[in-house]
Structure formats: C-alpha cells, structure tokens
C-alpha cells in the first residue's frame, strides 16, 4: 500500500513537452483512473509513475519518499499492458513466476503458492501449462493481470487493459477488475483509459487530463455533477452533455450553458426551448431524442423507456433548473 504524490511533474520528448506540470496525489488503496482524449498524456503519466519513463523535472513521491530515479522493479509496482505483453515463449505459469524468480529470496514453493493463489483468483489455474498463443484474448488479459498480482505490488498500474477486447469481454473483465480492487483493498491502483464509462464505473477518483495538464480530479459523481470546465463536462457522462451558447445562453447569464440529456424534460408547451426532432434512438430501458434547435450540435434528450416521437415533430423542452451548468467565456463554471 502506498500513496503516490506528483509535484509539478514535467516530461519532454526532445523539444515536445507532453506533461506540462502535473500536481496530483493518489491516496493509499485508492483506485485512480486517468482519463482523457488520446494525446492528453495519460499513458505517459502512468509510465512516469511506473518508472519506465524518466521525469524531466518535478518530484515523484511514493509514501513521501522521492522515487524520481528509482528503477521500476524497486518501486513495488506491477503493470498490466494494453497488449498484455506476455512472454510468448513461456507458459502461463512461467509468465506469472518470472518476476519472482528474478527477485532473490523466494523459494520454489513460495513462488508456486503465490502463482497458484493468483491463478485461483482469476480462475486461470487450468491454463497454467499453456502457452499464451493457446489462450483467448480474455484469458491472456487475465494472465497479464495474474502476473501483476503475483508480484504482490503496492501499486497496480493498468494501461488501457481492455481496449483490445470485444465489447462483451470488456464488460466482464471490467467487473473482474472492480472485484479485484475490492479484494485487494490495500493496493493502490492507477488505471488509464480513454473510455469514460470505464472511468466512471471503476474509479474511486478520476483524474481528467487534457494537453498534459490535470483538468480536474474528483470522484465520479463530483465530476458528473460539478465539472470544473466545459471540457470535463463534455467528457464525463453518456450521452455527452448538450452545450448551448449564444442568445439562448445569455438568458441564463452565461457564455455557454450545459445540460445533460437526462436533465431535460419534454413539456407539452411553454418550454424553455423548442426544437424539431431529427432522429430518435430506442435502447429499450431508455431512449434518445435528437433535436435540431439552431445549436452547433443537435440537442439530445434522454427519456426513460421507449418513446414514439417521429422525425419532424416539434417539441418543447425544459431543462431542470438546478441541473443547468453555466460556463463563462473561458469555459470555467459560474457558480
């Protein structure tokens, strides 16, 4: 168990600065998710924590101790890679045991016990003798996770571990990881993803990154309810938050107004705004209605259950007043 503290961390590749001064604290036992669009520096940040990448300037502390120059293997971390990065020539057992065999002072029995325990946790015990190529994608990812568990790390790092899996497996493995976190509550986990659903579902706290800077850190609900910027507001939540600017926003005393689809009601008349239905999507449990009302992008309204609006219908809508997010010209919230 370890806390991680980043102080004004910067990282440059040549003349290109990728991380531009990040201050962040990851608490002990916390599940922290780095999220952001591609190129925001989230993977780089993770690699800086892992020690695979050198910090250009700033300080990185594990449990209050500076680890800037410490080798990855000495940081007490384990990492799960996007491509699993299993050793193709080793069996599942050897893959999981490799790290331990390199550390001195582990007896064969101990290694076997630890590997088997991890394998049991992930239900891959029957595959221990197989080679990675004899496994399915999901099984390989479990092995990769198992390899990390075997190392008994203080910090668990995930680099987009689900992006190579198909949708169904992704959900299943996500749950697996969530369960893992629960069962290993003394292990700090840092998880990188570009998928905000993963972020919302897994995280204790989310760190939204943008262009090498931290945009906002907070629990999923904090981010959902009190986004610190238009960027965060737009990134968190599905469907994406509707943004309305111009005259309609002026009415709210803001430069931009943001309102989530689930926070808009369709009213019989006298609504705040009116729009024309251009498209509807029925998902069963809920449904989306897309409205054209002169904004840059169509406004989405999320309704419970199915609906029977048709394209071309004119509807009146009203945002829930306490759910309206107002932003100034700089994209910052007006509170």
């Amino acid at each position, binding site marked *: 168990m370890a806390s991680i503290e980043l102080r004004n961390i910067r990282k440059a*590749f*040549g003349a290109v600065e990728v991380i531009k001064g990040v201050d962040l604290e990851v608490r002990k036992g916390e599940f922290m998710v780095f999220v952001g669009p591609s190129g925001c520096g989230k993977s780089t940040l993770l690699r800086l924590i892992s020690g695979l990448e050198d910090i250009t300037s700033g300080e990185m502390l594990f449990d209050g101790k500076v680890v800037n120059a410490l080798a990855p293997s000495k940081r007490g971390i384990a990492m799960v890679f996007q491509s699993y990065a299993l050793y193709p020539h080793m069996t599942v057992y050897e893959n999981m045991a490799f790290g331990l065999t390199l550390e001195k002072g582990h007896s064969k029995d101990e290694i076997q016990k630890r590997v088997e325990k991890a394998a049991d946790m992930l239900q891959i015990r029957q595959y221990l003798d197989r080679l990675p190529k004899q496994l399915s994608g999901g099984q390989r990812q479990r092995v990769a996770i198992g390899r990390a568990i075997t190392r008994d790390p203080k910090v668990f790092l995930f680099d987009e571990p689900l992006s190579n899996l198909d949708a169904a497996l992704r959900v299943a493995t996500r749950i697996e990881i969530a369960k893992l976190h629960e069962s290993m509550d003394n292990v700090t986990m840092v998880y990188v993803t570009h998928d905000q659903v993963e972020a919302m579902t897994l995280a204790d706290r989310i760190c939204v990154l943008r262009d090498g800077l931290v945009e906002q850190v907070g629990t999923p609900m904090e981010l959902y309810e009190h986004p610190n910027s238009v960027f965060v507001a737009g990134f968190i939540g599905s469907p994406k938050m509707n943004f309305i600017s111009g005259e309609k926003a002026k009415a709210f005393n803001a430069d931009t107004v943001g309102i989530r689809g689930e926070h808009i009601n369709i009213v019989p008349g006298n609504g705040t705004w009116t729009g024309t239905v251009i498209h509807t999507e029925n998902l069963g449990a809920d449904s989306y209605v897309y409205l054209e009302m002169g904004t840059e992008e169509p406004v989405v309204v999320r309704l419970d259950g199915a609906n029977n609006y048709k394209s071309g219908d004119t509807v009146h809508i009203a945002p829930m007043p306490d759910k309206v997010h107002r932003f100034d010209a700089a994209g910052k919230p007006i509170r």
Partner: protein
Amino acid sequence: MTTDTLAPPVTVTVPKIKSELMQQRVRAARWFLLPMLLALAVVAGWPLLRSIYFSFTDASLTDLYGAEWIGFGNYLRWTTLESGVTRYRGLLVDPAWWNAVWNTLRFAATSVFFEAILGMIVALVLNAEFRGRSIVRAAILIPWAIPTIVSAKMWSWMLNDQFGILNDLGLRLGLLSQKVAWTATAETAMQAVLIVDIWKTTPFMALLILAGLQMVPRDIYEAADLDGVHPVKQFFRITLPLVRPALMVAIIFRLLDALRIFDLIYVLTPNSTATKTMSVLARENLFDFDKFAYGSAMSTLLFLIIAVLTMLYIWLGKVRFDGGDR
C-alpha cells in the same frame, strides 16, 4: 507504444534527472558495445587504415616498408610537356578503372534486383505450409552452401561450350539453336556471371526474408483473410511493409557483397574486360602487377564509392536507425 517513434532527446535546459533504469541501460549498452567495437577496431581498423595509407604512397610489394608518401599521385597527377600539353595520369583518369566501375555497378544492380525478387518469391513459398517443407528448405540452401571456388568452377564446367551440360540442355529443350560459348564472348560473359551469382546468392536473400516473414505475427494474415483482402493486395499492404526492415538489410549486405564481387568472377572470367570488376582489378594491381599502391588506391576509391552508394540507398530507402527503443 506511445514513445517509440519519437526522436532521441535533445538536451533540455532543465537539468535532466538520470534515473536508475536509464543509467543501468546506458551502462549496459556501453558494456555490450565495447567488445564488439573492440573486436572490429582490432580486426578491421589496422588493415583498413593501412590500405588507405598505402594508397597515398608509392608502395610496392617488393619493398613494402620502404614506401614513401606521394600524396594524391595514385589518384591523379599530371605533367605538362614542353609542348604545353598537360597529360593526366592516375586512377581518376584510368579508363580501365572506370570500365570496372561500370561493370561493377551494372553487375550489382542487376544481380541484387533479381535476387531480391526471386528471394522474396522463394521466401513466400517456404513460408507456406506444405508437406516436405523442411527438405525443400534445406535443398534451397545448397547453392549458398557450396564454396564459391567450387561452385564457380562447377558452373564454368557446366557453361563450357563443348561439354557443358547447359548448352546440351538448351539444345535438347530447343532454347538454344547452337552451342553458346558463354564465358568466351563479351556479351554473354556478364550474363553467365549474373546467372551464377543469382543462383548462388538468392538463398541468402530468401532466408533472411523468410526470417523476417517468420517474425510477422501470423494472426495479422488471419485477420486479413477474414476481411477478404485479395492475396496480392495482402502482399503489398501487409507482408511487404512488415518484412521491409529485413528486406532492406538483406539488400544492403547483398549490395555490399555484389559491389565487392571478386571470387566468382576471378574463377569464371578472370581477365575478360566485360566482367572485370573493381575488386578483380584491384587484386590484379595489388598482387599480379607491381602496383601495390595503385591497387590500394583502387580499394580506397572502391570503399568510397560503396560508402556513397550505401548512404544513398539508406537515404532513399528510408532505412531507419531509430525506433524500437525506449
């Protein structure tokens, strides 16, 4: 995979923090390179510098250690006659040399071109699964495995106009209308040398490309197959780009070898001006004639020509030196 294509770091103004990992790697790299560089410096350094040095002297094998420095005389020197006519002498104006350069370039370009294509075909065939593949793979390697001095003689035997089997075969199959004296005439001598060289070194190319093919994950093809990509398109879109690094290196080394071609021609057509290459000419001057310094000058110029061509190739072929690292 986010960093592998980025340029190596330029020194940043902020004092760089050297991590243990980086230090360990750089230290390891140094120790790993040292023995190799040391070995090369010892084995190659001295002889190469010696050769270059001799090219600026009047060295002769009769008196190697009494060589005197004469500057660029072996490359170019001139005397102005009383009549005012300036006569140029030296390697740079030696028609025999430029003939050899031309022969070499022609030979290298043609042989490497065909070897690359044939090598690719053979590699693709060997990469396929079929019964008896291991035997075929061993059989393919035979031309490369036979010592050059032997295979060159073997071919000179087979190419013989009177009792050569190639002429006989050509006549029987109706490919030739009369027996051809392959190595005798200027027109066919080069063809003969090319045939033998391509036969001999295609396995080298094929094997290296095959190794490249083998390092390509097979599932990429499976995915492409499922997508219904036409095999030809598959080759140009997937296979070729993936084996490109291996192919490029194979070509570089074949090119270097072809530009230095010596033993094959030395045995097959040693004195034919149609096939005399730079190395053969250099040998003649180094050992047969009493012109050791002149031969050294040829070797040095040959070195420069190859160096320029290689750099050109690396530049045009965009052979990368970076990437894959961390």
